[in-house]
């Protein structure tokens, strides 16, 4: 076993997901199989090989620092599930004593 229930629960927390016991069970066994399959990459010697992050290299893309039309406040916050005026409204982030 490469992954345990504890690992899945920890990774789910990092990814801001809450899983029920059934999901933890299912993802543990599925991810174990997938990671085991991925282990085949370790049979390749890749020492000294640079990783590819983008297939078509396109470096130093510059543009003039011109002022262009931007989204209005309304367009930017218009989709928010909760808002107050021109702000996004969220539940408490810092606990107040």
């Amino acid at each position: 076993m490469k992954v345990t229930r504890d690992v899945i629960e920890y990774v789910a927390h990092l990814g801001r997901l809450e899983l029920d016991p059934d999901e933890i069970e299912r993802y543990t066994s599925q991810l174990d199989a997938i990671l085991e399959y991925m282990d085949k990459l370790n049979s390749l010697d890749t020492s000294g090989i640079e990783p590819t992050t983008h297939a078509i290299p396109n470096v130093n893309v510059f543009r003039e620092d011109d002022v262009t039309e931007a989204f209005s406040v309304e367009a930017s916050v218009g989709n928010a599930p909760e808002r107050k005026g021109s702000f996004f409204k969220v539940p408490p982030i810092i606990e107040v004593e």
Partner: protein
Amino acid sequence: MEELLGKDILELGNLLAKKEITSVELTKCYLERIKRHDGALQSYLRVTEDLAINMAQEADKKIAKGEGSLLTGIPLGIKDILCTRDMETTCASQILRGFIAPYDATVIQRMKQSGFIHLGRLNMDEFAMGSSTENSSFQVTKNPWDLSRIPGGSSGGSAAAVAAGLCVAALGTDTGGSIRQPASLCGTVGLKPTYGRVSRYGLVAFASSLDQIGPITRSVKDAAALLQVIAGRDGMDSTSIPQPVPDYLSYIGRDVGGLRIGIPQEYFIEGMEPDVRKAVEDAIKVFERNGTAVVPISLPHTDYAVATYYVICTAEASSNLARYDGVKYGFRAPGKDIIEMYKKTRSAGFGKEVKRRIILGTYVLSSGYYDAYYRKAGQVRTLIKRDFDRAFEQCDLVLTPVSPTTAFRIGEKVEDPLTMYLSDIFTIPVNLAGLPGLSVPCGFDHTGLPIGLQIIGKPLDEPLILQAAHVFETEMRLKKIPDRFA
């Protein structure tokens, strides 16, 4: 109407210019067909009937003034992952339900300038994650050739609608095969352009180093026409390629004599259905008869592509999908503090395949595993790319199957993600290497399900791919629309 179904975009453009039909008539024909057939097919998430009629009226005015261009008055379907101003864009996910895009994706903007008609939003696997369109949160799209089977994915709605004649053509997106595989399983043409050929601005991101937008059509010529409109450098996407856009349509009708066609031995594996193998081998003979040289080539790292892909795409996805937090748009579930709100929102809003990939992607990027998985996969990606670089020293195009099987049954692979992932074994390497690849129908299996041939080219060699695919298509003269929908 039936004779209109057989017309390509240029022919329809001619009829419109000569006033033999109007765009409003053509659009109503397609809306009527959607009403008649889409109850069974389930390819559209939303049909934008009023908008389509409005756009068609505008198109007819443009044509009357002699201002029509390539797509003026042509009714098209759009995969529901391309932001379109003042319209809901959901990615077939509960978490984006109700999201109204405040801007047009660059491809949509370009097609609007060309005067296209927006028929509606096509179904897909949630956030383009899947190979069967069964991961849509809203509905299961059927394969038009056999309604008990999947249309492929993730652009399954697009491929099904095009194959059933419920739009002239459609746009899809392809991260690991999501244009080519459904195109193949539905008997249509699907083109994934070179990475960067088409701007990704306004395409909801899944795996940014792999995603590309491209056409799904009933003919190679239509794929060339659509690419003509959507391709090109865009200041809003710094990964878009600055090279000028060639006149793709001018390559349609040129012969393929003297070209060298590479056949990779690694693509003719065990597990491939005999009918698929036979159809692809016959396709190679068609190219030989047309004067191409056939060169055996080797792509030795093919067997590592699926593992490489699922490390890279899940890592990028886990990062891209962090933005769905219930704050800026879409769905929110209540929580006593912000972390609980995030967790409840994401857990209720994402479907199970999306959660699986977020967990996998978070795992491979997490402290202590980054080098073992993500860095390693990036290195193997280099090896896969080099395989193609070497192969293209010996040949001009590479021919392979698109998928090892024809369309599988609905429900057959949903509980077995690894088997589902392996169904993209022939399309994934093309994304990893950033190359253009096209699926063109090459026959049917013994039960009447379509089979696709993949034509892969060097970076920016879309003209040569389209040229070769058109020669092949012309020779094959395969049936395009299933009887049920004809």
